[in-house]
């Protein structure tokens, strides 16, 4: 079991309005319909609210760049929650 994956999956389902979403670490933005800049920021705000954390500008940007995956997001999330 991957820590925080279930919670993150809940946020994804809410933001993308799709209850069928099942997160896998290797998934990228290309695996989700309509993941554009606005959807990305909306997702980041929803994650911040759900986990009570704040992302830096560069972190939000990094999570949208090519090569970034759900696994990258989980790693950053875990690091943020560990620092709290």
């Amino acid at each position: 079991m991957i820590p925080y994956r279930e919670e993150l999956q809940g946020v994804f389902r809410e933001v993308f309005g799709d209850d069928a979403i099942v997160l896998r670490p290797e998934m990228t933005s290309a695996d989700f319909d309509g993941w554009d800049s606005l959807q990305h920021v909306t997702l980041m705000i929803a994650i911040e609210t759900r986990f009570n954390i704040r992302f830096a500008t560069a972190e939000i940007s990094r999570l949208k760049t090519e090569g970034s995956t759900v696994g990258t997001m989980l790693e950053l999330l875990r690091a943020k929650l560990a620092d709290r």
Partner: protein
Amino acid sequence: MTVCTFSFVFGAFFVAMFFFLLPVPLRRWIFTLASALFLWTLVPNLSSWATLAAFLVSGWGVAYFVARKPSKSLLTGYLAVLLAAFVVLKKYAILRYFVAGRILEHPIGIVGLSFMLFRQIHFTVDSMEGQIQPFPSLWVYLNYQLSLFTLLSGPIQRFNDFRAWWEDPRPVHQDRHGLLWAILRVLVGVVLISLVAGFCQKLVHRALPSIGVLRMKDCFWVLVVFYAFPAYVFFNFLGYCEIVVGAASLFGLKLPENFNRPFFARNMIDYWGRWHITLSEWIRDYVFTPLYTALVRRRPTHAQFFAMVCYFVALFLAGVWHGATLNFVAFGLLNALGVAAAKLWEIQILNTGGRGALRRYLQSPRIGMLATIATFHFACFTMMFFTPDLALVAIAHLLRR
């Protein structure tokens, strides 16, 4: 000196031949020397040198303070002063309504200032948010800002990517094939600028015998300008990027790509993810995201409305950043209109048919082709506002219809 010159291209090839034979500290000195020589050809007078120094050193200094003790008010105040200085230095026409004309008659000319501004804002903001650690020396920062490969027109490289190379400048091409590919990229860039973009520019000049004067009576020539001018802008900038990305890679410096077949975009949101990518990403990170986040946190129920507002603010700023005349305002607002329309259309599909309808819509090849053709023509139309002369022609032609 520009990058599409014999001295730049063959100078880069020549230095690259022995660059990696030198010890690492000497590689850095060679890079600094090359950047300094390049800059020397671009700065016209002593007042420009002094202003450039003040511009850059102030950015590093403020970043140093906010990195040690984060202060939103200090950063906001500094960015306001920086933007005001930028507007004066670039001699924005609108200033004539607010300040004495004498202020705008200064002799200062700094090539690449617009890109330095973006890098500086990124550096100060990221420093305060603890994303640039350890904090660099002024020397490294100046090398980042004045790098000969990104000085004139980008791509807008982020500081941490530059520093990774600076600390360990090693070859990125492991074999002869990679090296030849990089050299070919540079030469293709030269061809794109001098032949392809040059040809498109000639077509535009033929259609507009005297730039600035409306002499366009023939519909054929309207079409020529409609397609040739965007092609000129695209191939000229693509060629520039091919040269600097290819040449930088010979020194081991990996620059971000700026284009990804923009005229194959299926809507204007997609288009801005493919056209001048590093600019789009910068605007997304330092204008759109903070503004949208701040607004939505206050009133989450108004998220869709705020998104539209942020599109207009972000692309309006992107427009006026390109130039100091009113046509760039129109350019920015037209692009914002296109982006907002694409988002509203997507929301409409989601509201009426749900996620499945959006998926079917995005996967339909016929819709994809029509959407791409429509986006291409809309993007070409917005390009008519990329120079004051063509903006006049575009408006006059629309009115005549």
